[in-house]
């Protein structure tokens, strides 16, 4: 269920756009902040709030990398593996981190604490290798530093 607080924030977002549908991305962020992902029930609810067909919401959820249609581990840690980062050892770092957390890219750890991922360029190419952990960037990494960042996650 979308809470009344979130619902009123979504309605406020709809006021900011010339057409209500413009608020769909902000609304999905709000829903995700509340529930951690966008379930098919919330898709239906959100569609109703915004006057859209559920499929119009669902196709947007699945198009964008930052929206999730199923429950997520508590943290996402993604190493950029695009060319500039790879030139500075990003792929080696990622393989070492897989070993460190004992889980492969895309497979959440058993305790649901964390999932490792790889990302395309995140706009930190000169500060490589780097990873994005939830909303924060960590740059100019070496293995020890990267491990300590992951170990500190609750």
């Amino acid at each position, binding site marked *: 269920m979308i809470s009344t607080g979130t619902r009123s924030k979504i309605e406020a977002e709809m006021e*900011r*756009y*010339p*057409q209500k*549908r*413009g*608020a*769909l*991305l*902000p609304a*999905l*962020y709000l829903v995700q902040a509340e529930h951690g992902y966008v379930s098919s029930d919330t898709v239906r609810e959100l569609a109703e709030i915004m006057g859209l067909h559920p499929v*119009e919401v669902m*196709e*947007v959820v699945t*198009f*964008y*990398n*930052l*929206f999730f249609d199923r429950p997520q581990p508590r943290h996402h840690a993604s190493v950029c*593996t*695009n*060319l*500039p980062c*790879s*030139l*500075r*050892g990003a*792929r*080696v770092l990622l393989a070492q981190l897989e070993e460190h957390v004992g889980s492969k890219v895309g497979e959440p750890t058993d305790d649901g604490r964390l999932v490792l991922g790889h*990302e*395309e*360029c*995140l*706009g*930190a*190419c*000169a*500060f*490589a290798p780097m990873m*994005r952990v939830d*909303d*924060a*960037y960590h*740059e100019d990494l070496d293995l020890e530093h990267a491990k300590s960042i992951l170990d500190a996650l609750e």
Partner: protein
Amino acid sequence: MLKVPHVTSYLTEHFAEDAFGTLAGYEKKGGYAAARKALTEMAPGDVIELVKASGLQGRGGAGFNTGLKWSFMPADSDVPKYLVCNADESEPGSFKDRILLERSPHQLLEGILIAAYAVGACTTFIYIRGEYSFPADQVERAVAEAYDQGHLGPNVLGSGFRHDVVVHRGAGAYICGEETGLLESLEGKKGQPRKKPPFPAQVGAFGMPTTVNNVETFCHVPYIVNRGAEWFRGFGTEASPGTTLFGVSGHVVKPGLFELPLGTPLSEIVFEHAGGIAGGRKVKGVIPGGMSMPILPAGQLDVPMANESLRERGTMLGTGGIMVMDETTCMVRVGCVISYFFRDESCGQCTQCREGTGWLNKIMNRIERGAGQSEDLGVLLDIAAKMEGQTICAFADAAAWPVQGLLRHFRADFEEHVRLGRCPFTASFEL
């Protein structure tokens, strides 16, 4: 951590000062004087003429004349008109817009105000890529400050001009940097690019006339208004005036951001400003303008970094993201990484792009594994040629060009893989 350019000129002069990011700090350095001047002393048409005369080219990748683009907006119209700031920066190798957003959001807002006044826009949407959380927070804080002080809202700077700014966060899709993919996304849809015409100046955001410009493009505008077109033309080349932000990454001693005049030789940027190749090795190739642009071999780094001269060498300035590769680098692996990116990010609307990007990546991987055939090189070029100029947006061209560049200058690397049945570059970066 504070990220500032290693070399600065007018655009990034004050970036080392934290306070420059605040409204008070920005105004202390003369900020918003250009917007005051434009909004109170100039007619919209004069602003457009001034920017045209300065020769400012868009810094988002295509290098289109900014003033000319503004002049395509209908001058009298009774429908709302919009301005869009493209802050989706996702071109691999590029990180300049991020630094501008983080360090100098008021400079961006001032450029936006001047542009909005020139084209008669009532609202600007700043579309920031979803991963840029901190930069977006900085911009939202600046927007709030600007509303607070009357620099945005019903009576901007007391001039009578009304303007609103909406900060809109993307959600992770490279194609939303393409301006019509961006507009779809802004309207709450999948970011699939539109057929053109109609161009955004006729039918843009929410069906209304819209101008889309890049973050850096806006940031140059206040300086042009303050100091004039002639002053601006004192930097750069005749055809490409001004400075720009070159981002240097890869195998250099001092990767980072460098504000230098357009036309600065690539070799000067790599060997002087970025400190040359790390570990005393030699350079093998350099991608000059973000991943979509064809690579240059070591022998061609004398080229001035401006579109007119880069085009003669079969490449382009793009976003100014310079990626440097040393002599250990396997160019087939480079091809694997590049083609994977485009395969992953194609929006899938056009057959040539959806299928072509997949095949380019499969064949690259096959060659790298040592399972390639000598015909594969011809097949790569054939696919690339069929993708070019055939699709709804320029993404497919951007996917084809790097492959063509690699085969033009480093064909021997590919032939060697096929001949040996394995990758000969044991010291290369690892896949």
